[in-house]
């Protein structure tokens, strides 16, 4: 039997040559999802931006910058309805979901396939989803069934993904901005600025968002943050120490505080407008002049002491904060830099000049000394002095040092060269692997999410293992596959997606910070726990105890 051949003319790889609308968007997502190569992703996005309608472009930008409309249907109903349409029991759907690892993917795989194509645009789908939120469950179910039935596998995945959550397809906002810059021939940094802040894809046109110059839109807009890479090699390699300014690297929420037109805007690094969460800063209005943008860190400040990130956690989740909480965990802004002054963008000035402006401003703010503080800059004569200062980081409640070249402009995004972070070495402890769960996305179907335990003496004086942290990064893919295979052979019990395993393997766990916590079974909360290495040389009896861990609390 001779294989069927396809003629060259049937070959459709170019996204622009595909029909657009939802099919074009699904084809774009498929291309982005099926390559690991950045240039292929940028090209696919550029082709899409050149071919799509303006309406669909705005929605695509919104989706890829995590501005989806609110979820119109809760996931419990989605699961029930998908298993109903697939004619399988709900438990079987749930088991499949645990294995596939992604809800939209599971639904797309399980409901019956069709060959019928949709002609609707991406914008039509999103408008329907927005309208759907207010409809009855019956209407929602009817809408989903209708659409699941007419979409092909990949479109069905994308459609369901739009309903359930964000796309994790390795496309950062930066990458998308680069493609948009190629397609529109507008400077990438200008686009990054235009895309920041609070815009509603349902209200704004492509013309207004991207093409038009409109000063009043910029009232609340922050600047893209300049982010530092971790230092590579030795700090001496950075050259003459006198060219560098050092600061402590504070462990809070990196933020921009904007004062324009007698209004205050507070932005977090995740480009979230968080003004309402931190009413402490309302007093800046009228004291800090209009046309000022400050880059700083929001830190908990309790009885004149910088608190731990754990303290700040209690503030992060709340949209409006109670008086009691404000009193218990007050915050302050530790100012690093000034980006706008007298309404002028001063990011191109050297860091040392920007700091001078910031420090002069600080001098005028004598009545704000609690909620507004400077992150002190330090100037050293030798790199040894810098290293010595770094060793004080934990007692200063900082994560290490920041090194900034004195003549550096304030750049956009993560750039190498002018700014470096030099964090303290993490704290580490040897712990025993006790539970495992399947990973998500790239790691679905592999057991890669682990729970670790430490020894504790119980009331009878016997040693038992107590859970203290979860970690799911730090091993190589090959190591994960080995641990995964071992877990599958050494499962003690299954609890849905979670398995308990024979305590046998010891891992060295690294973490950045540690604090007492009532919310944790062990009584201790660790920050950024991750696996440092697999201690194959240690037996479980050589793992550390909870007492050892508690001794690390400052």
């Amino acid at each position, binding site marked *: 039997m001779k294989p069927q*051949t396809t003629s060259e003319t049937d*070959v459709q790889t170019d996204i622009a040559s595909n029909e657009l609308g939802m099919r074009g968007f699904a084809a774009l997502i498929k291309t982005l999802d099926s390559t690991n190569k950045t240039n292929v992703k940028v090209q696919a996005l550029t082709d899409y931006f050149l071919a799509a309608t303006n309406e669909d472009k705005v929605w695509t930008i919104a989706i890829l910058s995590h501005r989806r409309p609110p979820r119109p249907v809760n996931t419990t109903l989605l699961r029930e309805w998908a298993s109903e349409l697939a004619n399988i029991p709900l438990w079987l759907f749930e088991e499949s979901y645990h*294995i596939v690892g*992604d809800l939209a993917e599971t639904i797309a795989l399980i409901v019956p396939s069709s060959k019928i194509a949709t002609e609707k645009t991406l914008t039509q789908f999103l408008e329907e989803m927005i309208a759907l939120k207010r409809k009855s469950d019956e209407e929602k179910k009817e809408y989903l069934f209708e659409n699941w039935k007419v979409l092909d596998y990949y479109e069905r995945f994308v459609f369901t993904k739009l309903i359930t959550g964000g796309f994790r397809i390795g496309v950062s906002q930066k990458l998308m901005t680069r493609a948009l810059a190629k397609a529109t021939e507008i400077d990438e940094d200008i686009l990054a600025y235009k895309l920041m802040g609070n815009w509603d894809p349902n209200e704004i046109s492509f013309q207004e968002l991207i093409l038009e110059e409109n000063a009043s839109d910029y009232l609340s807009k922050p600047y893209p943050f300049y982010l530092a890479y971790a230092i590579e090699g030795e700090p001496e390699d950075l050259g003459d120490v006198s060219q560098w300014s050092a600061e402590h690297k504070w462990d809070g929420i990196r933020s921009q505080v904007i004062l324009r037109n007698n209004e205050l805007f507070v932005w977090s690094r995740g480009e979230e407008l968080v003004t309402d969460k931190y009413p402490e800063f309302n007093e800046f209005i009228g004291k800090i002049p209009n046309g000022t943008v400050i880059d700083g860190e929001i830190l908990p400040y309790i009885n004149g002491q910088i608190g731990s990130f754990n303290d700040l956690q209690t503030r992060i989740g709340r949209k409006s904060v109670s008086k009691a909480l404000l009193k218990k965990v007050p915050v302050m802004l530790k100012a690093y830099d000034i980006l706008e002054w007298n309404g002028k963008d001063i990011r191109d000035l050297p860091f040392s000049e920007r700091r001078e402006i910031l420090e002069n401003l600080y001098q005028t703010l004598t009545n704000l000394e609690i909620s507004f503080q400077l992150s002190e800059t330090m100037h050293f004569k030798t790199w040894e002095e810098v290293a010595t200062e770094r060793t004080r980081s934990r007692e200063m409640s900082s994560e290490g040092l920041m090194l900034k070249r004195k003549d550096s402009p304030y750049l956009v995004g993560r750039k190498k060269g002018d700014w470096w972070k030099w964090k303290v070495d993490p704290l580490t402890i040897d712990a025993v692997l006790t539970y495992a769960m399947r990973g998500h996305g790239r*790691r*679905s179907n592999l057991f890669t999410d682990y729970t670790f335990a430490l020894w504790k003496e119980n009331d009878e004086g016997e040693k038992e293992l107590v859970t203290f942290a979860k970690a799911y990064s730090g091993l190589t893919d090959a190591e994960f596959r080995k641990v995964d295979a071992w877990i599958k052979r050494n499962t003690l019990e299954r609890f849905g997606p979670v398995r308990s395993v024979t305590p046998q393997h010891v891992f060295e766990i690294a973490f950045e910070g540690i604090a007492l916590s009532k919310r944790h079974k062990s009584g201790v909360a660790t920050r950024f726990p991750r696996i440092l290495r697999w201690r194959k040389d240690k037996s479980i009896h050589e793992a550390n105890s909870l007492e050892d861990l508690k001794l690390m609390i400052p």
Partner: protein
Amino acid sequence: MKNPLLEFTDKGIYCSAAKVYLDPWQPVDKAIISHGHADHSRWGHKKYITHHRNVPIISHRLGEINVIGKEWGETFNINNVKFSLHPAGHIIGSSQIRVEYKDEVWVFTGDYKTEHDGISTPYEPVKCDTFITECTFGLPAFKWTPQQEVFENINQWWAENQAEGKTSILFGYSLGKAQRLLKYLNTDIGKIYTHGAIENMTQVLRPLVDFPETTLITKETKKEELLGNIVLAPPSAHGSTWIRKMVPYVTASASGWMTFRGARRRRAIDKGFVLSDHCDWQGLLSSIEATGAEKIICTHGYTEIFSRYLREQGYDARTEETQYGDEEDNTVPDETATLEKQTS
């Protein structure tokens, strides 16, 4: 209480009435072998009985062995137990093993698929009372597309890579998948090159099936001559220096596991084609129905989930531990798993 016709022991599936094992994982005196993959046909048995198309395969893999080849449907008696082999459609020479004794019939599938792949004898359902089935892909998420469509996509992918001046590298197990891919690659596009493990196994099978011409990659092969052509390689070759020398290239894997978006990305493979030598969910269910069996035993794959579903459908279904496949573990063509599946 009398012993069941087939028992699950620490050496393998055992028929005590005939004193013979089916696909044992420990050395035994007499073994009936379903097919040539390493987890089903192991080294060290005193006597092997298998389909005659599997004889060259296991002789190649295991060397000097004492083996008897049988025809499809040929009945042979051992201690008054009637045995016969029936096509399983999994790979060339793969059989289901039918066992009949005192009016009771059991069938052991080994591995099987319902789709006719054009190189192995197509699967035939066999009526039985107890059906011992694999369920590697026993989840409703698995739904195969007809292979013709998959091969069109593979050939189109190859042509596109060629247009970009790149070498296409396609991964598949050296026994089974590699030959199935080889059979349908469109040689109008270019030449087919092979990794040694695949070339050796293909040579063994050439007397049985008509395959396109292949060229073994040797130390003398220049990477320039590979450009625009396709290379068939076992999954374990992924990331090896052998592959890295072939730049510029594009990689793809053909496997049922490519159903999951994560499986392809986890292995950093550029493209995934969903193509399996096992049954999909519907394939398993319709095969079970066609046997008319009331008792179902699930041996490997998503056994717990699949047997629970069967029980809800009214079957007397259960799971038995075996050493076939690796429970839920074929997801990644991981080094240890693929080495096992390769020729030694």
